[in-house]
């Protein structure tokens, strides 16, 4: 369709449904599929259900269900009702999901295994969702009390709400918050369309493409997977959470599904290269391999590009607040002696970049500075976080810039090179982690007095080390600590190593001396090697 006409992400899918109604739109992990016509019809009915349940334009609707065609149908139905979807990781602790969904006061929710626990953990004083749909989870799933079964919601008369606008919120993605509470990144249809249209321009998708949907739906990589595929009448192959972590089987899936486009974090590609037995699989269908979310250790990139030399590899960079904003094509082959990570490259055509020093002055070319991004894909702000919003944006030259917090420097030949961060945020397996959120989780343990968490980078990625003190109490065993973390934090936030000290080092102003802890952690790591 003429892209200047798209007002909502749903317009793209509806246009494909008119153009290629019989083509397969989505393949569910269980093996069944939906054509474009079926998907459009089901989404209309979910929209009808939501409207009848009282969902109004601008409302938020939570979705914490396993990855599958049902989840995507829910997203589209929610947007057809002119509401915004709020995807949450259904495997995360119930209290965390309750905190996320109640933070933005969802009016309705699609829940699955653990749904009852999420509702039980709802904070007092916040209205619970007035309509809850139970979506089939694992074999033990039962629709819990008060929930409408998914198949029943699908019987609703269809509806589409008039008045779609690019400024409408499309979805809210929650990311780690430094004070321990996740914060919701609001994204509008304008933001998403800006990004999706750029993908069309650079990657030239067609209805012959077969896209992977590896990323969880609460991760913004899923925006490319779902909406670029649906815009072009292509087929989206949803990878379940379990399959996504099983490299041998995942490699088989790529081959038998004859995927043409793969998009994931570098960690997953590294796992495929190491454990996937790739030389035994015919993945020659792959024409594009995209990766984002963290630095790709060069030795693993060398490995995967050596195994799939026929594909075009791209490094995509961008925080959730802007989605992808710079990108770099990886020239192959990766030289055997290269150690330096690849650049994050040049700004996408819909984005502008600005590098400033800490005084807010533009840096001289080549000097390190903080990267700022402007353009239609820059988010409007965090849900209900006025302080964070004030800190996140800068007005300059008549434009609104988002401060990514990433330190970069510009190379005239290669574009931007990622240097690091100045705060306490790290990327691990592609996930954004505020080290303060891990500390807050650990502080809930009664025996711990002081908690200092640092991240140490090496060739393989980032390791998280927790330094603890427990004077006058029995020190919990490592196993007890790991179990405690599993109950209170998402799995990717669990520290790799725990060390007890008599007392944590302090600065002259009595704050925890993180530089000291980082030196300690780095020295230990070097010792171990």
């Amino acid at each position: 369709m003429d892209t200047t006409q798209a007002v909502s992400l749903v317009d793209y899918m509806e246009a494909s449904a008119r153009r290629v109604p019989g083509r397969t739109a989505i393949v569910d992990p269980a093996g069944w599929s939906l054509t474009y016509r079926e998907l459009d019809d089901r989404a209309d009915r979910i929209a009808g259900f939501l409207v009848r349940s009282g969902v109004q334009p601008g409302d938020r609707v939570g979705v914490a269900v396993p990855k599958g065609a049902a989840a995507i149908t829910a997203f589209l139905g929610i947007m057809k009702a002119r509401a915004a979807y709020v995807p949450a990781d259904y495997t995360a602790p119930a209290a965390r999901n309750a905190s996320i969904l109640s933070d933005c006061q969802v009016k309705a929710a699609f829940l699955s295994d653990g749904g009852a626990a999420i509702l039980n953990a709802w904070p007092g004083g916040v209205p619970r969702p007035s309509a809850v749909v139970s979506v089939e989870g694992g074999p033990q799933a039962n629709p819990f009390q008060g929930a409408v079964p998914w198949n029943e919601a699908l019987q609703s008369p269809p509806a589409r709400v008039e008045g779609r606008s690019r400024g409408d919120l499309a979805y809210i993605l929650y990311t780690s918050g430094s004070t321990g509470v996740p914060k919701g990144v609001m994204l509008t249809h304008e933001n998403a369309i800006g990004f999706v249209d750029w993908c069309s321009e650079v990657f030239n998708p067609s209805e012959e493409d077969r896209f992977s949907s590896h990323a969880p739906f609460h991760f913004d990589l899923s925006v490319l997977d779902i909406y670029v595929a649906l815009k072009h009448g292509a087929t989206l192959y949803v990878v379940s959470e379990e399959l996504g972590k099983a490299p041998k089987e995942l490699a088989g899936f790529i081959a038998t599904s004859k995927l043409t486009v793969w998009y994931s974090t570098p960690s997953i590609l590294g796992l495929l290269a190491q454990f996937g037995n790739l030389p035994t699989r015919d993945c020659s269908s792959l024409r594009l391999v995209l990766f984002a979310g963290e630095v790709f250790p060069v030795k693993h990139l060398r490995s995967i590009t050596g195994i799939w030399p026929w594909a075009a590899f791209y490094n995509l960079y961008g925080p959730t607040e802007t989605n992808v904003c710079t990108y770099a094509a990886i020239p192959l082959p990766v030289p055997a002696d290269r150690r330096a990570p690849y650049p994050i490259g040049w700004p996408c055509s819909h984005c502008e970049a600005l590098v400033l020093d800490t005084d807010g002055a533009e840096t001289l070319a080549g000097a390190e500075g903080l990267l700022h991004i402007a353009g239609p894909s820059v988010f409007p702000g965090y849900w209900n976080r006025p302080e964070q919003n004030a800190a996140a944006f800068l007005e300059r030259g008549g434009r609104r810039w988002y401060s990514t917090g990433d330190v970069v420097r510009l190379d005239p030949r290669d574009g931007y090179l990622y240097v690091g961060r100045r705060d306490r945020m790290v990327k691990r397996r592609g996930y954004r982690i505020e080290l303060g959120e891990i500390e807050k989780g650990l502080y809930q343990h009664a025996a711990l007095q002081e908690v200092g968490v640092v991240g140490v980078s090496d060739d393989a990625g980032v390791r998280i080390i927790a330094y603890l003190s427990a004077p006058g109490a029995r020190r919990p065993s490592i196993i007890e600590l790991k179990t405690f973390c599993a109950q209170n934090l998402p799995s990717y936030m669990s520290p790799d190593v725990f060390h007890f000290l008599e007392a944590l080092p302090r600065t002259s102003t009595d704050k925890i001396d993180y530089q000291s802890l980082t030196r300690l952690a780095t020295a230990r790591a070097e010792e171990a090697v």
Partner: protein
Amino acid sequence: MSVADTIRQFILSRYLPGESPENLQDDTPLRSSGILDSLATLGLITFLEEEYRITIEAHETDVDNFDRIADIEAFVERKRAAQQEA
């Protein structure tokens, strides 16, 4: 060293640095407790495949038969026996 002890030693050194060996018992739940996440499970599977020359499929490693050292030991022994017969 028994299979159970070999597994215990591997898990301690790779995933529980600093832990006292006596805290990791044969019946300590590993995955359901969060001691081993999905990445660690992969590492363990690779170790077992190499150490005992067996092949392990993803569907064989569900939490029911792959959560405690005692279960994993029994699994490995069954695999080795089956492979010898074949």
